[in-house]
């Protein structure tokens, strides 16, 4: 196809969006032609989702211009965008769990009968037809909550199809799909393409992009940094563009923490699974030395979070042994864990880390207020002193102590959660994705703090899904798969590709060695 001859279906010019002075998207030009699949790549927090939410009318207050078929548009909301033929399949499944599939597909635009009631029969008939097209034979009357995650994902795709959209944004549409389901999805994408639709495809899976996409654009820190022919692009090129130069330099400099004796030893740690969605530890053994930073690698659902939660006493009663400084402990909850000197930084800071309305001060000292209190009274000066010290050390502006923590940037919010943990004076830090959605500058600060803590003898267990981070920051990495520790790697002699391959499974390692790039 002669690309130049085909005019763009969608064209974004100079689009930008800032949140509280932090630019999420800067001056981006992006286009999709009719019949084209355009892949959008970038690290977490690179601005992919924000850019696409702008396109789909979910985020307003941006600058720049969007044209569809050459006509300038400015959507007032997702419904407005849908009417113009733009639909988005979200990474977070936006379905109502208790409602049947058909009701979810037609939510908010239910067909009516002549007397004005909802035409259920038509809804179910059309839904069945859509599901057929994707190749899943589900009963449209089944409630969404009774479906597997992968099936739910396919339902969202059916929903997007039902809009008869001409522009479809797919944000990680295959994250929960099995291989045959992915094949089926790609067939549907092929049909859509032939029908003249334009598709934006967001994914971290390089092999998929090579299979399905025509073009690939890479975003970094909100800007377009590269554009590739998707079929000719190698994984190495793409990740180099995604990561960029600065990341190499943000990792801690200098010698790695020399282990100063054993701090934590975990033996055969297992929790009998409580719910199907959890990947509880199934016999994990590992150790962390004083001043050592040990990484936890693994794919989504490998059980990294569950392991950290179990060590912190919030993941169910484990069997096996946890030895801290040679003594066996059984943390029964966060309070007990903190008393033992274990601090935890949870994965989702907004959900589990912070009271966003409350001040930076209140959030920072929360774990120690009862410790510093005398006969139940918090000494103001001591409290402020402790918070100021942490805030200074973290590089958060001192003036913001009274400001609600929700008004800070993601990076500074994360520093507050980390600071709260550090204030408890821990011997062991458990960190779950501490740099997710954090800009490069804040990342560097966080790594520096980890380095500082480890040089004081604090042991760190760091769960991360970024291989570069694990290799750059950790002394050793333990790879988890299906709730088990399958491999331990010395980061001095391991590559990112190896780490990723071990996370995916042994078979993948051979494929990598044989093929170079997928």
């Amino acid at each position: 196809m002669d690309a130049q001859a085909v005019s763009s279906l969608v064209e974004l010019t100079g689009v930008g969006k800032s949140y509280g002075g932090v630019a999420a998207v800067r001056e981006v030009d992006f286009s999709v032609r009719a019949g084209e699949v355009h892949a959008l790549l970038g690290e977490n927090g690179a601005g992919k989702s924000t850019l696409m939410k702008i396109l789909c009318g979910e985020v307003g207050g941006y600058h720049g211009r969007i044209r569809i078929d050459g006509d300038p548009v400015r959507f007032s909301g997702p419904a407005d965008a849908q009417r113009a033929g733009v639909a988005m399949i979200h990474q977070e499944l936006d379905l109502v769990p208790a409602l049947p599939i058909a009701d979810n597909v037609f939510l908010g635009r239910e067909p009516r009968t002549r007397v004005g009631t909802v035409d259920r029969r038509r809804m179910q008939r059309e839904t069945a037809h859509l599901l057929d097209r994707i190749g899943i034979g589900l009963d449209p009357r089944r409630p969404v909550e009774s479906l597997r995650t992968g099936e739910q994902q396919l339902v969202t795709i059916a929903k997007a199809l039902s809009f008869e959209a001409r522009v479809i944004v797919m944000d990680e549409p295959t994250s929960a799909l099995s291989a045959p389901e992915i094949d089926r999805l790609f067939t549907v994408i092929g049909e859509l393409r032939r029908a003249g639709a334009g598709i934006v495809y967001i994914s971290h899976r390089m092999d998929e992009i090579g299979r399905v996409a025509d073009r690939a654009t890479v975003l970094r820190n909100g800007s377009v940094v590269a554009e590739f022919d998707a079929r000719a692009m190698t994984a190495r090129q793409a990740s180099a563009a995604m990561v960029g130069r600065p990341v190499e330099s943000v990792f801690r400099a200098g010698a790695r923490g020399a282990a100063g004796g054993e701090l934590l030893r975990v033996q055969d740690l297992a929790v009998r699974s409580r719910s199907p969605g959890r990947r509880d530890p199934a016999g994990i053994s590992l150790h962390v030395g004083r001043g050592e930073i040990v990484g936890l690698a693994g794919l989504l659902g490998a059980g990294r979070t569950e392991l950290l939660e179990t060590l912190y006493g919030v993941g169910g009663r484990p069997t096996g042994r946890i030895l801290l400084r040679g003594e066996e402990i059984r943390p029964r909850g966060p309070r007990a864990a903190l008393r033992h000197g274990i601090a935890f930084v949870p994965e989702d800071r907004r959900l589990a880390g912070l009271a966003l309305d409350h001040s930076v001060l209140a959030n920072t000292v929360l774990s120690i207020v009862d410790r510093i209190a005398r006969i139940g009274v918090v000494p103001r000066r001591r409290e402020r002193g402790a918070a100021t010290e942490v805030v200074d050390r973290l590089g958060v502006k001192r003036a913001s102590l009274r400001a609600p923590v929700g008004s800070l940037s993601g990076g500074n919010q994360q520093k507050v959660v980390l600071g709260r943990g550090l204030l408890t004076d821990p011997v062991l830090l458990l960190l779950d994705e501490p740099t997710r959605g954090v800009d490069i500058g804040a990342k560097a600060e966080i790594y520096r703090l980890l380095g500082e803590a480890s040089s004081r003898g604090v042991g760190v267990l760091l769960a991360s899904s970024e291989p570069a981070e694990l290799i750059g920051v950790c002394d050793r990495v333990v790879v988890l798969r299906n709730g088990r520790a399958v491999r331990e790697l010395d980061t001095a002699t391991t590559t990112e590709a190896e780490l990723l391959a071990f996370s995916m499974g042994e078979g993948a390692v051979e494929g990598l060695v044989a093929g170079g790039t997928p």
Partner: protein
Amino acid sequence: MTKVAELPDLNRPGNGLLVPLFRFQSLFGLVLVFIAAVVFSPTRRGELVFLDSGNLFNVVRSMSEIGILAVGMTLVVLIGGIDLSVGSVLGLASVGVAVLLTGPGFGLVPAVLLVLAIGLGFGLLQGFAITSFGIQAFIVTLAGMQIARGLARIWSGGQGVSITYGGGPGQAPVVFSLLGERTFNGLVPIPALIFAVVAVLAVVLLRVSAFSRHVYAVGGNEKAARLSGVPVKRVKIIVFGLCGLLAALAGIVHAGQLNFGGPNDGAMYELDAIAAVVIGGTSLMGGRGSVVGTVAGALLVGVLRNILALRNVDANVQLLVIGLVIVLAASLQRMRPASVS
């Protein structure tokens, strides 16, 4: 998703004046209502009836029971809960203290302490049920409301218990009747004084204590609080216990003012208490609010009722006015910017 009306950006320096207005919303409201009351007050012999010191203290006295309940309710609402049982517990306590004082052999102090302990225990039990069985506070205290009412009727035999004073058998100690009296030259009603003491204690507790940090944290983000080492269950149980304790105190004051223990008394008081909390600017979502606001909210309702009564406004119209004030206060709160904590 849907487009919402653009609100003025209150975080901008130019709007700095608005911030204290929002923070002390109910205090400003109280001042406004007070001024309006002065303006509209009827006069008697050239004097404003509303500003008569006797009348003003009557306003405080009339709100003291609701005010005491509302202070406890503020704590509960701050942790994101609600307590529907306080009106019934007030009834139970008024019956309890009346029965114990007029029955044989119970001294004043043991009787009062026992009734307070009943209120505390009732609240603790509700808190325990909420945290241990994971049932919503609304449901547990809805049940508690019925149970306390039932207990009050059983204890009193379904009849009101009159309190007579004296030294003889079946008579309450005369000291108890002080609750119906005034002090400082017959000016300040004792119930108003008790309300004031409770409010001051609560304000101080919420300002300085580590416990209050835990209360706000639980309401602000329960999960984060738990992971930060806040003993969430304990905090919740204690808060419901304190709310029950204050409801029992209000019940004792109630019995003392009326010289009567009424098993059916206090019905709907829980809603008046919640109204005072809401008008006071405390968020029903938890984590935001203050006792100062609640006290101002309670007094605002009191002044409003008073001036409407002085102007001989129909009691039913009074209800309309109070209802509108609640809506107004709640909508002001929605407009409140995040920077006002």
